[in-house]
């Protein structure tokens, strides 16, 4: 495939035809933040944290989905780019609990983001209020505090929790549940605007939805909004300790697909099972048995 050459921050970078500006930035070793982008999902380009300045374009462009075209001139660290990236990070951190989103935190430090300048976080609304919000309507704010997406943790099954206070609405879980991996379509984005949220139909609990508990949504969630019950409970009890954890790769003990597993152990017990994205067999996706069916190992003791 022929290469195209573009100019990034004054330097020529060549990438294969069809590659994105993001791929070119990464080829050039430029640290480009991304939140909604993932190698194994279709780009939705909604977070806008990867935007770059493209000569001749009125607005900034999302590097994750814009194809590199010969002769493009791109700036990744102009004042405009920095302002937009900083503000996007601030907007998220001022409205969402990003305490477990390590990469987002790192980028916030890099860009000096100050989410506090929009005011203190507003008190959380009543339970279920976000699920009941009506498109096109909202109560006028006082302005004294910054509105957030805070809401109670949804715990409606024994395998994973949905803590949407931590949801940045990157759409990754919807894609992984849908046509990018599982084709189950148990969840979608519902509502509109700031009240947009990930939801089952009529916000029914997961056991009443089409969910098949593949947990591929957990695998792609960048903020810890979707989490194994085991991890959630250990965190709540203060017994989740990444410094005492080891990770190793192996193969799922169930069917003949041969999914790669990345198993985390702590104190001689399995505490979490994921699948590496770069695994060619299923690109990081699993089924309920592979993701959750490992508990027999510990239960023999």
């Amino acid at each position: 495939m022929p290469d195209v050459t573009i100019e990034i921050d004054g330097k020529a970078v060549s990438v294969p035809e069809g590659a994105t500006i993001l791929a070119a930035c990464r080829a050039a070793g430029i640290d480009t933040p991304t939140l909604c982008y993932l190698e194994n999902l279709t780009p939705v380009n909604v977070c806008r944290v990867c935007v770059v300045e493209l000569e001749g374009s009125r607005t900034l462009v999302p590097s994750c989905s814009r194809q590199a075209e010969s002769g493009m001139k791109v700036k990744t660290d102009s004042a405009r780019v920095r302002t937009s990236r900083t503000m996007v990070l601030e907007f998220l951190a001022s409205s969402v609990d990003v305490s477990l989103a390590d990469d987002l935190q790192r980028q916030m430090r890099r860009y000096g983001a100050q989410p506090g300048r929009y005011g203190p976080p507003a008190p959380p609304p009543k339970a279920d209020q976000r699920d009941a919000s009506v498109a096109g309507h909202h109560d006028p704010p006082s302005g004294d505090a910054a509105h957030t997406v805070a809401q109670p943790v949804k715990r409606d099954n024994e395998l994973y929790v949905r803590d949407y206070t931590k949801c940045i609405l990157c759409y990754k879980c919807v894609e992984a549940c849908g046509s990018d991996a599982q084709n189950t379509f148990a969840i979608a984005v519902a509502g509109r605007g700031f009240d947009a949220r990930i939801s089952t139909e009529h916000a029914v609990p997961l056991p009443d939805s089409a969910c098949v508990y593949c947990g591929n949504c957990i695998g792609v969630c960048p903020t810890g909004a979707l989490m194994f019950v085991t991890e959630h409970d250990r965190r709540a009890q203060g017994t989740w300790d990444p410094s005492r954890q080891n990770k190793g790769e192996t193969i799922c003990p169930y069917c003949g697909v041969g999914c790669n597993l990345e198993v985390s152990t702590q104190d001689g017990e399995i505490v979490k099972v994921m699948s590496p994205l770069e695994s060619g067999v299923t690109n990081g996706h699993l089924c309920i048995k592979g993701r959750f069916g490992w508990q027999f190992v510990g239960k023999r003791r």
Partner: protein
Amino acid sequence: MAVGGDQARAQRHRLLPALHGLSDRIGWISPGALNYVCERLRVPPADAYGVASFYALFSTTPRAPQILHVCDDIACRLAGAEELCAQLEQKLGPPHEPLPQQQSACWTRSPCLGMCDRAPAALFIAADPGGSPRGEPLGEVDRPRLEQALLSEDRPPAQPARATVAGTQRTLLRRIGKIDPESIGDYRKAGGFTALRRAIEIGPAGIIHEVDVAKLTGRGGAAFPTARKWEAVAREPARPHYLICNADESEPGTFKDRVIMEEDPFAVIEAMTIAAIAGGCERGYLYVRGEYPLASSRLQKAIDEARAAGMLGDGICGSPLRFDIEMRRGAGAYICGEETALFNSIEGLRGEPRNKPPFPVRKGLFGKPTIVNNVETLANVIEIVAKGGEAFASVGTPGSTGTKLFCLCGHIARPGLYEVPLGTMLAELLALAGGVRGGKRLQAVLLGGAAGSFLTPAEIGVPLSFEGARAIGATLGSGVVMVLDETADLGGILVRIAAFFRDESCGQCVPCRVGTVRQEELLHRLRRGRPLGSATQERDLLAQIGQVMRDASICGLGQTASSAIESALSKFEVFNRA
């Protein structure tokens, strides 16, 4: 053979009409009904719920079957809508809740209903289990009239009032008020379909040539050369080609397309057909705002009659050409006026804009080459084809040819729809409409709508052309000319504009989803005189919020969500007076 797979998935585009079908009958989208639709169309229920909950006219929780939407948007606010809503709340209880007096009815606030010339306005919708819902636009309302609309049983449906139409040159509006809009015969007698016949004679290249010579540009706000768009689609090898008439007119203060659709519906059909011939489009969609029941019913009748008369379908107008139009109703989402959001809406997806490129002329509706034009743009085509592009270009200025419709509303003596040649001075237009109502002093003019900008009295000498507006950092937008007199609460208007964008953001991209919230919060702080830090810091922050929305949002909604607000703050002492 079982219906499944690709064949079943292809039913998705029927989702929005199906949801309308439910709402029309029972007034809300119940879980059982939604599941039934999903089963029939093979759409996952979560997806369908995501779509249903996207639109303001649908309710996914139980709601009274009769609902009164009361406009509290900027034009109606200038006419006392806030006070009206406060009275309603006192008498009828909170919005969305069944009325204490009548459990089968409720009321709610609404963004602009496109009846700004008759503000304050309301829209009464009554679901009907038989599938014939009543949609009744109500203009110049007061509390007793709204109570009557809600509470009295057998009252004759209100006769739709006709809009005031005026201007210095009536080209687009020449048939308005002079023909029976439901009579194809009347339309023919008034010269209807002669342009279509000529279009068939001169063929696609001939049509595009005339439109090119006419220098027609899009009237939806972007002012893109129409001929270039059509030619690009005509050249695309992929098939089929689609034509979409964007009649999702939702910019606050705008009602021009509604008047054309209600009063001259056959012109919309004829113009769409000409555009379709030019672009080689086999199929057309007419996407009408959900809040325009009269326009919808008249257009549907016009489509049916035109088809019966051989002007649509196989062999239009006796030629071998084939073109047909399907009407689609929006359901309360300003964002669906954005062309790519409109595609998604028609396809049965959430009305979220797509990233561009690819552009619609290459990959539009269902991934195929698509022409999208708004009603006013298309209406010009009839004149251009009938009289020739050169004649059309002789009107207006060299850079802005033809006439333009302006929606005069707010504190103006004679609100209504005005047609003037492009380049006419704003001051002239204001004078034509009788000037500021009641002889009050002019405070400001909002030009172009909520996504437009505020002008000072010193700026009303601006020529109303695309380049004239651009020269003072403004835009003609959708042709809104909203007059604010010296008594108007500009701060209140700005807060309402901010609330509008917060409500209408689709929520997809972070800059717009959160930026519109932070912008609104900040304006409330300024308005209440409780800034975080200094007022200057707040102004700086507001400017930065505006910048990130403009620079990094996916679509025009986020990109313009701060423009009117920023223009007001830069030109007026808005919050310092409070």
